[in-house]
C-alpha cells in the first residue's frame, strides 16, 4: 500500500476521466460519476496523513522505477509540503464538481474529463520527484486548464485562455532548459541526486556560480509566472475573470500553488546560495506584488477580477515567506498556500454562485444582497475574513508566520520587506471589506435582486468543508505544522558552515539580541559564485 498509494491517488482521476470518456452522454450520470470519482480520490488521499510518519523527515510513500531508459524515472514521493498540497487538490476537485453541477450544461462530458485530467496532473506535479516527470505533469496541467477556460468561460474566454497558455508555456521552456542542463551534467533527473550534486559541486567548486545563477533563473521564471509574481501576473486576472467557476477555484486554489511549491522545492531547495543571493530582488517583487495587487484590487469594478488581484497580493506573501529563507517564514508560506487555496477557492465558488444567479460579476449590479441571501452572505463573510487574515481563521497563521519569518530573516533588507509586507494587512482589509460592502450592504438598487434565491443545499455542502477547514486550520495549526516543519527544514538550505559562522559574527555586533531565532541562511552574496571559480 505504501508504495502504490501515490500512484493510486494520481491516476485514479485519470482512470476516471477515461471511464467518463467512454460513458454515454447522460449529463446527470456524468456529474455523479465525476463526483464519485473525485470523492474517491479524496478518500484515497486521506490515507496519506493517516499513514504519514510524522516523526521522520524526507520523502515518504516513495516509488521509484525506470520509466524511459535508465535515467528517466517514475519517482514519486510525498513530504509534509506536498502531502498537504495533494490533499488540498483532492479536496478542491469534488468541491469544484459540485459547483459546476448546474452551471455547466453544455459539453458536460468534456468538462468533467478535463477536470479530472487536470486533477491528475496537479497531483502529479506535487508528487513527482523526478524532474522529467515533474515537467511532464507541470505542462500537462496547462492543456486542461486552458481548455476549461476557453471552452466554458465567458465573453473574452479565448483571449484569456490563449494568454494563460502562452504566458506559462513561454516561461516553462526556460525551466525545461535548466532541467536538461542539470541532467546533462548530473546524468540524473532525480531531485535528491541533483540536489546533492549541486551541493557537492559548490563545495568542490566544480560548477560555476554563473551557471547556477542561470539555472536558478530558468526555474524561477517558470514558477514566477505561475505564482504569479509581479510583473508577470497579468494573465491571472484575465484567466480568472473568464474561467468557469471550477476553473477559477482550481486555478487559484491549486495551480498557483504549483508555482510557489516549485519555488520552495526547486529554487530554494536546490540552489540555496542562489536563493540567498537573489532574495533581495525577489522579495522586492513579492512585496511589490503584495501592495500592488492589493491596490489594483481596490479599484476593480468586477468581483472576480478583484479576487484575482487579491491572489496576486496573497501569493506575494507566500513568495516573501519562502525567500525569507527562514524556517518560520517558509512554514508560514506553505501554510499560506493551503490557506489561500481554501479561502480564495471559497471566494471564487461564492462568486460563481452569484454569477449563476445574475450572470455578471460587475459590482454595480449588486448591493444589498445580505437581505435576500443571508446564508450566502454569512459564508461570504467567513471567506472574506479568512482571506483578510483574521486571527483564529487560517489566513492569519500563515500571514503571521510569513511576516514574522521575514522579519527574523538574515536576508538583506528583510526587515524593510517585512514591514512593507505587513502593510498588506491594511490593504487586504481595504479591498475585501470594500468588496463585501459593494455586494451585500446598502440598498438594493436592482429590483430583480430582491428575489434572488439564497444558496441551496448542494451549494452549502460544497462550501461547508472549506469554511470549516478555515476555522480548524486557524485554531489547530500545529497539526499541519508537525509535518510541514520537518519538510521545510530539510528543504531550506542547510546553511553551509561558512555562512552560519558569518551569521554568528554578524550577530555579535548586536549584544542586545537575546538569541537569533532564525536558522541563518546565507547573507553573504553568492559566496559560492566567487569561491567556486577555480
Amino acid at each position, binding site marked *: 500500500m505504501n508504495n502504490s498509494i501515490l500512484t493510486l491517488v494520481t491516476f485514479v482521476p485519470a482512470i476516471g476521466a477515461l471511464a467518463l470518456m467512454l460513458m454515454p452522454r447522460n449529463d446527470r450520470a456524468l456529474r455523479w460519476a465525476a463526483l464519485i470519482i473525485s470523492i474517491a480520490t479524496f478518500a484515497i488521499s486521506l490515507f496519506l496523513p493517516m499513514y504519514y510518519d510524522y516523526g521522520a523527515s524526507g520523502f515518504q510513500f516513495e516509488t521509484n522505477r525506470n520509466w524511459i531508459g535508465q535515467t528517466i524515472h517514475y519517482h514519486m514521493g510525498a513530504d509534509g509540503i506536498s502531502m498537504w498540497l495533494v490533499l488540498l487538490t483532492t479536496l478542491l476537485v469534488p468541491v469544484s464538481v459540485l459547483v459546476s453541477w448546474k452551471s455547466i450544461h453544455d459539453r458536460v462530458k468534456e468538462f468533467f474529463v478535463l477536470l479530472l485530467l487536470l486533477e491528475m496532473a496537479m497531483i502529479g506535479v506535487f508528487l513527482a520527484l523526478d524532474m522529467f516527470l515533474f515537467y511532464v505533469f507541470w505542462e*500537462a496541467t496547462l492543456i486542461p486548464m486552458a481548455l476549461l477556460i476557453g471552452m466554458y468561460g465567458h465573453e473574452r474566454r479565448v483571449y484569456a485562455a490563449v494568454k494563460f497558455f502562452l504566458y506559462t508555456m513561454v516561461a516553462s521552456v526556460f525551466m525545461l532548459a535548466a532541467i536538461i542542463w542539470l541532467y*546533462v551534467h548530473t*546524468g540524473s533527473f532525480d531531485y535528491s541526486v541533483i540536489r546533492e550534486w549541486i551541493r557537492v559541486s559548490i563545495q568542490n567548486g566544480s560548477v560555476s556560480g554563473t551557471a547556477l545563477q542561470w539555472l536558478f533563473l530558468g526555474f524561477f521564471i517558470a514558477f514566477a509566472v505561475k505564482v504569479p509574481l509581479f510583473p508577470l501576473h497579468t494573465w491571472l486576472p484575465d484567466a480568472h475573470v473568464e474561467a468557469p467557476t471550477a476553473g477559477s477555484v482550481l486555478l487559484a486554489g491549486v495551480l498557483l500553488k504549483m508555482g510557489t511549491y516549485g519555488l520552495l522545492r526547486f529554487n530554494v531547495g536546490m540552489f540555496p546560495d542562489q536563493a540567498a543571493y537573489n532574495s533581495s530582488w525577489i522579495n522586492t517583487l513579492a512585496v511589490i506584488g503584495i501592495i500592488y495587487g492589493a491596490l489594483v484590487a481596490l479599484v476593480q469594478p468586477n468581483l472576480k477580477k478583484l479576487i484575482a488581484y487579491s491572489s496576486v497580493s496573497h501569493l506575494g506573501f507566500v513568495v516573501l515567506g519562502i525567500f525569507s529563507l527562514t524556517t518560520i517564514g517558509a512554514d508560514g508560506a506553505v501554510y499560506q498556500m493551503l490557506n489561500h487555496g481554501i479561502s480564495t477557492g471559497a471566494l471564487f465558488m461564492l462568486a460563481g454562485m452569484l454569477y449563476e444567479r445574475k450572470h455578471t460579476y460587475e459590482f454595480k449590479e449588486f448591493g444589498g444582497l445580505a437581505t435576500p441571501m443571508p446564508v450566502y452572505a454569512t459564508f461570504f463573510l467567513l471567506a472574506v475574513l479568512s482571506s483578510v487574515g483574521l486571527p483564529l481563521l487560517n489566513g492569519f497563521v500563515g500571514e503571521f508566520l510569513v511576516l514574522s519569518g521575514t522579519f527574523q530573516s538574515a536576508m538583506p533588507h528583510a526587515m524593510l520587506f517585512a514591514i512593507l509586507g505587513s502593510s498588506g494587512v491594511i490593504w487586504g482589509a481595504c479591498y475585501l471589506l470594500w468588496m463585501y460592502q459593494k455586494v451585500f450592504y446598502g440598498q438594493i438598487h436592482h429590483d430583480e435582486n430582491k428575489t434572488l434565491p439564497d444558496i441551496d443545499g448542494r451549494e452549502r455542502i460544497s462550501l461547508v468543508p472549506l469554511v470549516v477547514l478555515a476555522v480548524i486550520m486557524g485554531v489547530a495549526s500545529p497539526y499541519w505544522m508537525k509535518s510541514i516543519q520537518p519538510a521545510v527544514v530539510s528543504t531550506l538550505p542547510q546553511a553551509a558552515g561558512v555562512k552560519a559562522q558569518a551569521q554568528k559574527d554578524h550577530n555579535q555586533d548586536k549584544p542586545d539580541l537575546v538569541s537569533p531565532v532564525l536558522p541563518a541562511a546565507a547573507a553573504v552574496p553568492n559566496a559560492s559564485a566567487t569561491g567556486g571559480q577555480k
Partner: protein
Amino acid sequence: MNPIQTVDYIRILPELVLTAFGIIIMMADPLLKPGASRKGLGLVALGGTIAAIAATFCQIAWSARDANFATPGWFGMVRVDSFAIFFHLLIPAISAVCILASLEYLDAQNIRSGEYYALILFGTVGMVLMSSAVELVLIFIALEISSISTYILAGYRRRNAGSAESAIKYFLLGSFATAFFLYGVALMFGATGSTSILKIGPALGSNPGLLAIAATALMIVGLGFKVAAAPFHIWTPDVYEGAPAPIVALMSTGPKAAAFAVLLRVLFATTSSDWLPLIWICAALSMTLGNFGALMQNNVKRMLAYSSIAHAGYLLVAFAASNEIGRSAAIFYTASYAAMNVGAFAVVSHFGAGGERYVSVDDYSGLGRRSPLLAFTFTIFMLSLIGIPATAGFLAKYYVFNAALSANAHPTALVWLTIIGLVNSAVASYYYLRLIVVMYMREPVIVEAPAPASGAMKLALVLAAIATIYLGVMPGRVLTYSDAGARDLLPTAAAAGSATPGSSTFPGPVATTPEK
C-alpha cells in the same frame, strides 16, 4: 560463381517488395474500369507497405543471425545497419498511413488513377534506399526516385492550377537544388577520389582541404533543400499548399526523414566538424523563419508547412550537437515528427473535402462539436507539435535539446541555440494553439456537415495518434533502436566517440560529468 549472394537480396528486400507491389498496381490499373474507384489498388499498396515492413523484420532477423549483415553489400553500395533498419521500418509505415488517408481522399477529389499508389510505393523505394545507401551514386539515384515521384504526386490534382503550380515549383527548385548537391558530390569526388561515404571520411583525414569543405557546403545546400531547412526552405509553403493533402503528409515526413538520414550519413562521414557553425545557423534560421512565418497564416496547410520548416530547424539542433546523443535524438525526432505530422495532414486531408475547399483556420471552427474524433486526434497532433509532455513532440524536442546541452564542442553556442529553440517552441505554441482554440472555443462557420470519416481514415488517425502518444509515453524501445542506429552510423568513428573536439572557436569550460 555469382558474386551476388542471397544476403545481398535480403539487404534490399524491402525495396524489392515495394517495387514488386508497385509494378503489380501499375499493371492492374489498366484492367480496372476508367471511372471506377481505385480503392482496391490502394489496399494492395497498403499490403505492399506492410510487406515492406515485414521484409524489414526479415532483415532484422537476418541481422541477428548474420554478424556480417551490417557490412556494406552490393560492392559497398548499401549498408543495412540498425540505422537503416530504423528508417526501413519508419518510412513504409509513413507510406502506409498516407495510403490509408488517400483511400478516402482520392474518391473525394474524384481522382481515378491507380498510378497514384504505384508512385507512392516507388517513391517509398527511393526513400528506403536513401537510408541504407552508402554510395553517393546510389544516394543520388534514390534521392531522385523519391523526388521525382513526389514531383508527380504534387501535381496530381490536375484540374487544380495550384496543384500544377506546386508541382512545377517543386520540380524546378528541386532540380536546381539537386544540381547543387551534385556539384558538391563532384567536388567531394575530386577531393577524395571516391564516392563512397565509408571511404570519404578516412580519405579526408582530420584536416580536409578547401575542396572538400566547399563540397560539404554544396551538399548541405542540396540536402538542406530536401529537408526544407532555412535558407532553402522557401519552396515549402507553396508546394505544400498546392499539393494534395495526403501527399503533403507523405512528403513532409517520408522524403524528409530519408533526406535527414542521408544528411546524417553524409555529414558524419566526414569526421571534420567544420560544418557545425553552419548547421547552427541553419537550425536557428529554420526555427525562427518557420515559426514566425506560421504565425500569420490562415491556411492550415501553409501553416503546417511553416511548422515543418521549424521542425527541420529543431532537428538540425541535434545535428549541431554533433554527438551520439544528438544523432540518436535526430533519428528519434524523424519518427516523432512523422507520427504527428502525418496525422495532422490526414486530418487536413479529410476535412478539406472535395476540392480541398476547407483549409483555412476559420473553417476549423467548432470542429470539436462537429466531429469530435477528428478534433480530438488533431488536438493530440497539435499538442505534440507544440511539444507538450506525454506526446512524441515533447520527447523529441527534449532529446534534441538534451543533446545540444550535452555537446562538448561549442557548448556556449549550443546553449544559445537551445534557448533560441525553446523560445521558438514557445512562440510556435501560439499558432498551433489557434487551431485548438477555433476547434473547441468557437462556433462553427461552415454550414455543410462534414462527411463522416471513412474507416480507413479513422484507422490512419488513430494509428498516428497512438504512435504520437506511444512515442511520448513509452518511447523506450524506439529509443533503444535510435541509439543503436546512432552508434551504427559511424562504425569507424565510433571508437573516437562523440568527443571528437571540433575546431573550437567558442572557448568554454569542458562539461564536468561525462555523458553516458
